[in-house]
């Protein structure tokens, strides 16, 4: 069974919610990303989203834009990220989802991407600029080979469209908790609880996890009540950038993640 599916099954049986931290691969360096993934697993992360940096991340706010820029400057490529994941798989079985923009996949070759991502040890892929209407062949092949293509729902998704997405979804549904780009917000929309309930209803058996804007333990706890898991990205990446000069950056970021998870 795919690691994402078995993780949600396990969490559901235990009545628990998923905590999913995001990391930009290669920021501040690939070896550091590897250490952080292992630390996050130790500190209770359930699934890790690994961002593969793209030069024009239109769904991302300033923090992830900046980390992507630095990571690309460091020479981070899809190939090197696959190499890192392959090495990590000798030590960890934590579910890993690659998050990237479609151009990197198209450039690598969609068929080759699916093959190499699975061989490296990725369990799923999240592509913010790929709605279910596009690249049907890619999604079909990924499904056949067992790489979960994670789909999004947003506050602007109509009920009819939510049904359309749910019928095609696998792994989990990524619910965008606000209309906007990634990045910490002091307050999340008041309607979020209501929207998540509607998304859960549309999703049926598939888990719904919320992300975008989430940055505090209180928010994580509040949102978890309405869905199956919470994703935190920019707040963690910001913590990484603040911890670069710390005596033990891995522990500092690990502590931060553990506090968020609660």
């Amino acid at each position, binding site marked *: 069974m795919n690691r994402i599916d078995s993780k949600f099954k396990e969490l559901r049986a235990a009545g628990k919610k998923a905590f999913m931290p995001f990391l930009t691969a290669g920021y501040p360096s690939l070896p550091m990303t590897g250490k952080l993934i292992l630390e996050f697993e130790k500190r209770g992360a359930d699934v890790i989203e690994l961002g593969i940096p793209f*030069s024009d991340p239109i769904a991302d706010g300033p923090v992830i834009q900046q980390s992507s820029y630095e990571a690309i400057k460091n020479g981070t490529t899809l190939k090197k990220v696959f190499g890192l994941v392959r090495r990590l798989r000798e030590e960890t079985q934590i579910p890993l989802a690659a998050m990237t923009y479609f151009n990197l996949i198209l450039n690598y070759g969609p068929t080759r991407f699916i093959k190499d991502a699975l061989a490296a040890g990725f369990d799923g892929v999240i592509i913010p*600029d790929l709605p279910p*209407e*596009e690249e049907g062949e890619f999604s079909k092949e990924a499904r056949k080979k067992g790489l979960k293509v994670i789909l999004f729902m947003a506050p602007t*998704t109509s009920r009819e469209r939510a049904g359309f997405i749910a019928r095609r979804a696998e792994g989990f549904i990524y619910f965008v908790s606000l209309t906007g780009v990634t990045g910490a917000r002091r307050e999340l929309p008041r309607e979020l609880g209501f929207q998540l309930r509607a998304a859960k209803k549309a999703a049926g058996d598939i888990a719904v996890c919320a992300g975008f804007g989430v940055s505090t333990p209180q928010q994580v706890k509040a949102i978890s009540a309405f869905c199956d898991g919470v994703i935190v990205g920019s707040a963690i990446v910001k913590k990484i950038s603040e911890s670069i000069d710390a005596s033990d950056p891995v522990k500092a970021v690990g502590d931060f993640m553990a506090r968020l998870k609660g």
Partner: protein
Amino acid sequence: MLPDKHGHFGIFGGKYMPETLMGALTELEKVYRLALRDKAFLKELDHYLKNYAGRPTPLYFADRLSRVLGRGRVYLKREDLLHTGAHKINNTLGQALIALRMNKKRIVAETGAGQHGVATATVCALLGLDCFVYMGSKDIERQALNVYRMKLLGATVVPVTCGSQTLKDAMSEAIRDWVTNVKTTNYILGSVGGPHPYPAMVRDFQSCIGKEAKRQALSFENKLPDYLMACVGGGSNAIGLFYPFFADKKVKFIGVEAAGEGLDTGHHSATLVRGRTGVLHGSKSKLLQDESGQVKIAHSIAPGLDYPGVGPEHAYYQAIGRAEYFAVSDKEALDGFNLLSKVEGIIPALESAHAIAYLKKLAPRLKKNSVVIVCLSGRGDKDINSVKDLL
């Protein structure tokens, strides 16, 4: 019919956008399709195009230029004479009227040279809309005059300091604003790129260029032109000229891109000539990218051409052989700029000067009576400052 109902031109086009915007794109498509069939809308648009923007624009027979070139009869489609100085206003008028129909009073736009920004700020002032124009800080520096014009027109110019600080990043920021404020805001995109329905909608609003040119050419020459030529950045003036002639197979289309400092220097914007298939800003098309798929920074002396992508319909025309695309360097474009100024008394925009420059290369292949229509997409006033040290 192009594009198909999913917005695809062959393998190109589509809607590669975050889920948050999918509903807005569907609504925009619906409103625009209905508007194009609504007599009241078309009448209003026509009124503004005629009485406000200055359409139809002349198709001017450039007699002296034709004689200097030695072969062919060259006509200039004078989009440079439009209000605000370029073809961009054809599209912003259409899209602003669409925004009003959707009851969205806040407008965002991206701009490179500032021409689309000025055209957007202008229609927003005309129609009472709030206007936010995203512009790369590098472009703000080299197009100070247009920045000031936008401010005079009541728009807020938002400097974009990320990435290459040019058009590509301005467009990313405009999209991010739109994702954030989608409930109140409409995005007026300036070229034939972006997600469906923009490439089709912008083309339709720019098609007045080709429709008029066809009528004018038939009346002056009693035949269709042999060649149509236009500069291609995103490609809106070119598609506007080409599209109404699509079925006229004998009319050859030539698009001219910016070779910048030279195609082999890596400092150019020749997306169709040198790019590979990719996805940027919502559509699949040709794209300047490095071997790992990161988008390259484009370069051109003409800020309106300084974009690493291109409209998907152009990629399609190229793939099926309907149009040919070539590139001319910064230096050649400056020569074209100079030539048109000296022999016709028309100072072209540096963007349009690329088409003039290629005309010099095409001339030896022309027959004596070949009729060539060149789209003079904009006037050169905005470029005087950057050109004066180079000529």
